[in-house]
């Protein structure tokens, strides 16, 4: 099963490599990993997406918690949560395809953020599945480049993952 795990880490040099090293050393799957500072500059927040059976994911969470730099951890998949990922797609937009691509952009509530005579860059935010769907919807052969941020997430309701 797919799990999306949020981790608050001390904003120390090397904290990210401790997490990455843990996954490679113990052979855990890692689909994506994003990290950035929070409103508290001493803390970084990491979101990672992993897959595995219940025992493996339980062990992953324990091992993450065991890292000295880990302050708090929450498995967002265990409760109601919102997941968002940002994607930019560069597409070939020749004359005959421009309208179709604009329509797709509207349907997905995406934005065209760069235009040339022959290309668009489309920005799209949403759950990862929605981004997958957009990529599938673009007519074959038009995609030049895809860049995705990896998912981030937040739990619903008033409780927050903070100190």
């Amino acid at each position, binding site marked *: 099963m797919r799990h999306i795990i949020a981790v608050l*880490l*001390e904003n120390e*040099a*090397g904290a990210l*490599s*401790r997490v990455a*090293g843990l996954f490679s*050393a113990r052979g855990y799957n890692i689909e994506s990993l994003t990290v950035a500072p929070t409103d508290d500059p001493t803390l970084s927040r990491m979101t990672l997406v992993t897959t595995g059976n219940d*025992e493996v994911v*339980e*062990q992953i969470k*324990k*091992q993450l*918690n*065991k890292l*000295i*730099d*880990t*302050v708090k951890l929450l498995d967002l998949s265990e409760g109601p949560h919102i997941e968002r990922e940002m994607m930019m797609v560069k597409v070939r937009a020749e004359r005959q395809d421009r309208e179709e691509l604009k329509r797709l952009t509207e349907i997905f509530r995406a934005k065209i953020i760069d235009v040339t005579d022959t290309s668009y860059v489309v920005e799209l935010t949403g759950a990862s599945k929605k981004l997958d769907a957009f990529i599938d919807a673009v007519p074959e052969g038009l995609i030049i480049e895809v860049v995705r941020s990896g998912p981030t997430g937040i739990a619903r309701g008033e409780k927050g993952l903070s*100190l």
Partner: protein
Amino acid sequence: MSEAGVELSGAEIVIQALIDEGVEYVFGYPGGAVLHIYDALFKRGALKHILVRHEQAAAHAADGYARATGKCGVCLVTSGPGATNAVTGIATAYMDSIPMVVLTGQVPTPFIGSDAFQEVDTVGITRPCVKHNFLVKDVKDLAVTIRKAFFIAMTGRPGPVVVDIPKDVTDPNIKIPYVYPREIRMRSYNPVEKGHLGQIKKAVDLMLAAKRPVFYTGGGVVLGEGSAQLTELVHATGFPITSTLMGLGAVPMTDPQFLGMLGMHGTYEANMAMHETDVLIAVGARFDDRVTGKIEHFCPHAQIIHIDVDPASIAKNVKVDVPIVGQVASVLADLLRLYQERASKSSEPPVAQWWAKIAEWRAVNCLKYDGSGPAIKPQYAVETLYKVTNGELYLASDVGQHQMFAAQFYPFDKPRRWINSGGLGTMGYGLPAAMGAQLAFPEAQVACITGDASILMCIQELATCQQYQLPIKVLLLNNGYMGMVRQWQELFYESRYSHSYVDALPDFVKLSESFGHVGMRIERPEDLEDAMREAFAMKDRFVFMDVIVDPTENVYPMIVAGKGHHEMQLSPSHSDRELA
């Protein structure tokens, strides 16, 4: 002392922090990046430094000191090769959860990343084999980082912590006010102390209903100072107990309730009890593959209670029914109290039928060996060692057959007496670890049991032993082979002894003498006891006993990899017996 306002350089801070931490010995080796620190050490005095002959030995000696005393081991090495040489010792300590602080020199901060002379990414290289590590980039962070390193190394599940210190951070010309923080709090690190009482009650329920219970205990009991509590609990319950290699001595091995070590070379009765048990009480043990055998066959009838300070250790390899996270000593004390409140006061011996079954297994006499030939059997050598030393040794071991024979034939009655590399299995560990133990306890009898292959991996430490006049006794079980490799090749590779014969061995007597020690060569069983008594009578000398043993002897019982506890192989001297 550390009164506020004293101005110290980074190098002086390192030394003063170690003094304030109560450090007795630093095991180290100087080099370019730590020269400022060594100069401060020289000027300050007040801290005993032991000069090893290779950085691997610095880490092993600090580790041996830590295992023997329960205190934190400390070593100091230079950047680059100093640090990489120490890595084997750091990994050894990590695998066995030994508290250690390793100070490594680093090239000056402006040079980091430039492939400078003797530069290596020490933090990167050691990351997977430390509990935590630090790179100190500012002298203002030095004292608090060293305090944190000791705090992390010693608390929770202990382990090695590396502090990497660039040379400019120790600049003798830059002085700052020094204050050593007594208390340290880290919001990201809060080890658990007490176990959850609800969980402990569940454990008591299981224990009271058990028909075939067994304690399975490990190094965590020794590390967590839980020996007294465990021994009391074992006696109060009347249950049998087995131990891992790392836990030997936590409960007296001569206790009638002790079944011997379990696992790959464990006793028949211990492994059969594991296979038949209905309630397994695991304490400070980690279900290592050398202990469990094939995991599908592991304790097939048991409900499992697991007490450990590290939550990540629980349910890692084996599913657990009652997990209890907490300090072993504290949890065992609670467990004993709750058990005694509820246990019946009848005079019936508890689980008598279970003990009757165990008596049958014991009658197999699984450690029996054929000692009739003219050669010295390694088992006999260990038995003689036990007899001569009254079981009172601090015994450091290298890795291989001799290690298993020691675990089987030298029953330790106290914790911290058996000092060996269990998890990593590091050949070369024994001699430097014995140095650490001997320095910690100058009056105690300290020995190193080793093999002809292992001893050569840190043989340079004979010089250190001479320099500090360490009266260690080395017992070399010399079979001319890498015995354990040879055994596996005999059993699983049709006796193709690929590179396991140690050709061109030195004359160990002359070798020892060349370092200023006493060397002895013993070849006949009838000479062994007298020779050992003579060796141990030389109380202030390092004595190297080169004991020529039967080169074909194997370690039994054995659970072949991929087999279960009930599928043990006994020695050929048992071949006439049908086993259950």
